[in-house]
């Protein structure tokens, strides 16, 4: 059977690569150090493929009746999409895919009842481009875009069930010896659209990071509701649904909070959780 070698979740605010130099120096240093630590952890784990789960940002999934998930089966990607290059201050990158693994995940997840599409050629924005800036482009990736902001979004229970399904697929279905990294990306609190565009809820963020440290799925389902996430910032905070997928894939062990910065200039809580024991 295959195995997880690294599981992490992190924010992907566009300013992290786009305008970090506008932040106070202490914020810059804390954010850069945090992401660099994530990169070191992922590289040390030597994955053969990184499965990523992140919000689609209304760039690929249809506006009407979107699926909860879309796994991309392309051989390779270029990113970010052109419209986002100046925003992210990134010149562009190339990264390989693992279509044969992607096909297995699409097939198995669909058979398990998940609302998942398959496709190829997804456009990337900050969802992938910010994490990959620090994780690197050498390891093939398997992107799963999820619908976090187009109601009705998958509930926390759906995301935990999906994470558990990914865990089953990796451990019971994927080829023996395959080393799998998993990255959930999105959040923390932010409201990209609406009157609270320039603020966030750091109290909520700290509470959520502690929730990941505990990794009690029942409590997450009960307390980290879509409504509560939207109260902390509509249109962005529900990206934390991707963190719930990572948490569930880890199998119930607690996470370590790697860093947290409530960054006014990023207009987002920036932080990360890492699971190092996969039960």
């Amino acid at each position, binding site marked *: 059977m295959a195995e997880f070698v690294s599981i992490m979740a992190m924010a992907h605010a566009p300013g992290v690569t786009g305008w970090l130099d*506008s932040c106070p120096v202490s914020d810059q240093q804390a954010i850069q150090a945090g992401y660099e630590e994530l990169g070191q952890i992922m590289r040390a784990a030597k994955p053969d493929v990184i499965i990523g789960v992140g919000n689609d940002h209304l*760039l690929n999934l249809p*506006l009407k009746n979107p699926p909860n998930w879309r796994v991309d089966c392309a051989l390779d990607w270029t990113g970010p999409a052109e*419209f986002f290059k100046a925003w992210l201050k990134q010149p562009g990158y190339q990264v390989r895919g693992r279509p044969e693994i992607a096909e297995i995940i699409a097939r198995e997840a669909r058979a398990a009842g998940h609302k998942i599409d398959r496709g190829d050629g997804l456009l990337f924005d900050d969802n992938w481009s910010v994490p990959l800036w620090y994780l690197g482009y050498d390891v093939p990736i398997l992107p799963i875009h999820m619908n976090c902001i187009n109601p009705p979004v998958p509930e926390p229970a759906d995301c935990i069930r999906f994470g558990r399904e990914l865990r089953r697929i990796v451990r019971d279905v994927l080829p023996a010896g395959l080393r799998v990294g998993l990255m959930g990306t999105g959040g923390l609190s932010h409201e*990209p659209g609406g009157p609270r*565009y*320039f603020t966030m809820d750091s109290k909520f963020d700290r509470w959520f990071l502690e929730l990941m440290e505990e990794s009690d799925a029942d409590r997450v389902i009960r307390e980290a509701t879509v409504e509560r996430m939207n109260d902390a910032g509509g*249109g962005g905070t529900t990206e934390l649904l991707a963190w719930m997928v990572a948490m569930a894939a880890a199998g119930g062990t607690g996470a370590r909070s790697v860093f947290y910065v409530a960054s006014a200039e990023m207009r987002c809580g920036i932080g990360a959780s890492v699971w190092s024991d996969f039960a």
Partner: protein
Amino acid sequence: MANEFDPDLPSNRLIFDIRRDNDVWPHFKERLEELMEAYGLSPAEREAFRAVDVRRLGELGVHPYFLPQVTRLFHGAAGNTTKSAAAEAYRRSFGDQIVEHRDISSEEKPHG
């Protein structure tokens, strides 16, 4: 409820499509009238676009996530700081509704 919008609103289709079309988005401002005609925007939507009134676009049913992207289509995306032209256009549109982040830096220490 957060993120409620009208997926059939022509403005939403326009914004969805244009970010994917590298032949169009660089010339968005110059082609605004042509694009609004092609997508069949209502008079109210057209007026809001002309005024870069993203608050009004939200009231008409544009997805909130698209609103700051509209200001970037008009004012550029590079250096999108809280003081950028795109951000200031966003503030002007929402006026006194805007909630600025309260500086609680003395309480907010990064932790590891």
